[in-house]
């Protein structure tokens, strides 16, 4: 779904509590969120539970999403990631107080994703397919270097050195 369409749906949820708009966002987003958790090695039950929490947050907090600041998908991804971090904390019996601060920071920090778009695009262009795959496996799916080595059938040392060189390359565009 295009960003413009998602922005429109989010506005309908925020302004008129439009359940139909939410059902469209649900159909688009829930399978991605669920898949993200499964890729991160959570069980089916945990994945669905957290997916529900993420979508509930979208329903409740759609008014916090600011289209001038970020794409809808990036906002949704950070909610999903934060819920995953909170799950690990809950398992350690930690109080969860961070969520409000994170919402507030999102609203009040003055960095817009559109300002950094050129850096993002350069990184995407500069990294070849294998490098993008390593970033995905290591940082998005949080696979260990050992697991990556097994899956790609390359030596562990090669995985480490390739990740290092990928990060070095990426860092040149972090300005």
């Amino acid at each position: 779904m295009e960003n413009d369409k998602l922005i429109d749906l989010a506005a309908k949820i925020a302004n008129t509590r439009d359940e139909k708009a939410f059902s469209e966002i649900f159909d688009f987003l829930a399978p991605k969120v669920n898949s993200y958790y499964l890729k991160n090695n959570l069980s089916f039950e945990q994945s669905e539970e957290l997916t529900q929490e993420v979508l509930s947050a979208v329903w409740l907090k759609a008014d916090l999403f600011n289209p001038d600041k970020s794409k809808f998908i990036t906002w949704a991804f950070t909610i999903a990631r934060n819920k995953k971090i909170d799950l690990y904390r809950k398992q350690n019996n930690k109080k969860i107080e961070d969520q409000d601060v994170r919402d507030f920071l999102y609203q009040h920090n003055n960095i817009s994703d559109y300002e950094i778009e050129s850096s993002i695009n350069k990184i995407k262009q500069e990294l070849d397919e294998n490098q993008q795959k390593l970033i995905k496996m290591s940082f998005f799916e949080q696979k260990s270097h050992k697991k990556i080595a097994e899956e790609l059938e390359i030596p562990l040392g090669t995985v480490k050195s390739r990740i290092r060189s990928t990060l070095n390359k990426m860092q040149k565009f972090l300005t």
Partner: protein
Amino acid sequence: MNTTAQKNELIFGYSSGNLGEAKSLFVSMYLYLNSFAAKKASIFDNILADNFANLDEIAPRKLNYKDCIESTSKKNQKDEISGNLNPITNLVGNLENLKWKSIYKGFKEYVLPVNDGDTVKLIKMDPGTSVPLHSHNGREYILVLDGSFCDEYGEYKKGDMQINDQQIKHHPTACDNDGCVCLSITENDVVFFGKFASILNLFTFIKSFFK
């Protein structure tokens, strides 16, 4: 040593959500104080969100959109958002009111209530106070929250981070008129050099039994 790379890796770890609690807190404070670092985090968030957008979809089996709406009506509606954005004072309150522990003259510390393998603490140095020449068994991360300190490698001001490891021997001094408040993570003990080194090292050795 390329500490920029180490700082970036810390930021990437934060974006992907795989840091322990101590480092998460440390990086959230870094992003709060340092807009350049916050920008890097946003760039990496976007790279990861791209992966998210292109995921193979797996629909949840039992969940539907009505469940999500209903589950929110059971909870209190929106929680009140407090005005305090600072992750550290949000956790421990005003730093002035903490029970600081005096380590030696002009040098105080406060260990934060974080349950993690890494120890995270606040350090307060009066103006002109120095830490004796030392290096680190593991890595040490220092973030300046207020004031500034100087060492052999330069001056570090509010929002600056320094990462030290075994190869670094340094002798930091609070150089600002108001002294210096820092947040620090030590992965392992500090090793001292110079006149009082044997006593200070003995002290860390004994302290390690009580960890």
